[in-house]
């Protein structure tokens, strides 16, 4: 049976892992390669390197950080943050990334999804959607949660899929860093609307939150950062818990 994936996100700035609450007030959580090594031992299924400030500061994720992490793990590695062009994506993949995650650039030029899917295959192209509740809908934000787009997350996920995205990484801006639980309603709305895997992100605080997002949230994978970085919860203990409540995981 296909397992539900647990993905660790390394939010990187200036070569260091950081993690903020609601995308602001970043605090230092250490060396990306050291964290990746620890997660690998604990049984993480995938790693995402996200250059949280890359788009704002107009620079691409650093190749040496990617290479340092890729050297530590023989697991799928995704790189996001500042992937604006085909050349940015190629640089990340050449450095050792298996997948690239597009966010603001895909909103600005949806053709980039198709271009990269044709060159590397859809499995290498993740479209990241940052969304916030706005009355009865989920509004998409660009530029690290700073710019409202007036687009609807469900509709954008459908379009991204039809343009060749292989997975959707859906982050709740409302929940990000709060440890209040994933936005299961939003995750289910997007997951039910597309025929590609959806990775839920934003709000992980307890083991039960993961069980909820895999159950009622219909998520195929769940991503978290701060819950793992500070040794608050270990990946292996989380997986044991999920297995005990009947959710298929890789142990």
């Amino acid at each position, binding site marked *: 049976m*296909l*397992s539900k994936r647990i993905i660790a996100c390394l939010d990187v700035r200036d070569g260091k892992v950081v993690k903020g609450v609601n995308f602001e007030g970043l605090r230092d959580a250490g060396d990306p390669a050291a964290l990746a090594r620890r997660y690998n031992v604990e049984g993480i299924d995938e790693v995402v390197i996200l250059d949280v400030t890359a788009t704002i500061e107009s620079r691409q994720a650093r190749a040496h950080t990617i290479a340092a992490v890729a050297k530590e793990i023989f697991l799928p590695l995704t790189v996001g943050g500042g992937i604006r062009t085909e050349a940015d994506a190629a640089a990340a993949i050449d450095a050792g990334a298996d997948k690239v995650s597009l966010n603001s650039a895909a909103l600005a030029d949806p053709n980039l999804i198709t271009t990269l899917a044709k060159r590397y295959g859809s499995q290498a192209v993740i479209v990241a959607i940052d969304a916030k509740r706005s009355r009865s809908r989920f509004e998409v934000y660009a530029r690290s949660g700073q710019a409202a787009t007036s687009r609807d997350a469900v509709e954008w996920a459908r379009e991204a899929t039809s343009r060749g995205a*292989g997975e959707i990484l859906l982050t709740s801006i409302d929940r990000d860093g709060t440890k209040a639980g994933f936005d299961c309603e939003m995750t289910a709305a997007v997951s039910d609307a597309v*025929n590609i*895997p959806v990775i839920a992100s934003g709000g992980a605080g307890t083991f039960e939150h993961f069980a909820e997002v895999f159950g009622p949230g219909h998520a*195929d994978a769940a991503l978290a950062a701060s819950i793992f970085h500070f040794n608050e919860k270990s990946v292996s203990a989380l997986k044991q818990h999920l297995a005990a409540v009947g959710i298929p995981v890789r142990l």
Partner: protein
Amino acid sequence: MIALVDYGAGNLTSVRKALSAIGADVWTPSVAGELGRAHGIIVPGVGHFDSTKALTDDWRTAIKTMVEDGVPLLGICVGLQWLFEGSEEAPGTPGLCVFEGTCFNLGTPSPKPPTSAKATVGRQVPSPLKVPHVGWNSIIAPRSTRLMSGVNDGSQVYFTHSYAAPVTEDAAAISEYGVPFSAAVERGNVSGVQFHPEKSGDVGLHILSNWTRWCGGSSGGARADAL
């Protein structure tokens, strides 16, 4: 020396890195004529079956000749599918035809594979299935093979694919996503894996190490032996 065939279908960095980690020497031949010095040949691949068209007649002939001379050949992902007769993904693009059967779409399976009672136990995948099949799935070995030696039934490996090879008597490992499919195949010195051993942690490195050892002791195998 392991020849890692680059026919432009995606990125070889991860495969090269994993082979280096288990102590194998790898190079990417620029022309088919260079294959003659290979102790083993890997045909990798991600993406569309049609990309295997780049494996032109000179490559096909060189690979077949080496296989006939006893050199191990390993196909990974689309590389495994290419070892079959073809794929529904690109009708008219022939595979190498080492294995009988045509690869089918997991989203609209019209499975001709023989039903494996063992493989269908525990089927609880919700319908309709999302395609591509992405993530970690378990494998079982229907028989003993060199490639899968030492890999426990129920081990999980990382897949990302929309098309799959049928289960035949050549299956070395079977997985299931809606329907059973060949996760690995082996006949004589030709083998293939549908999953990505280079992305499957220690289990994947162990399988790659089994294969490189088969190629003639070019593997140190320090990491994989830790399994």
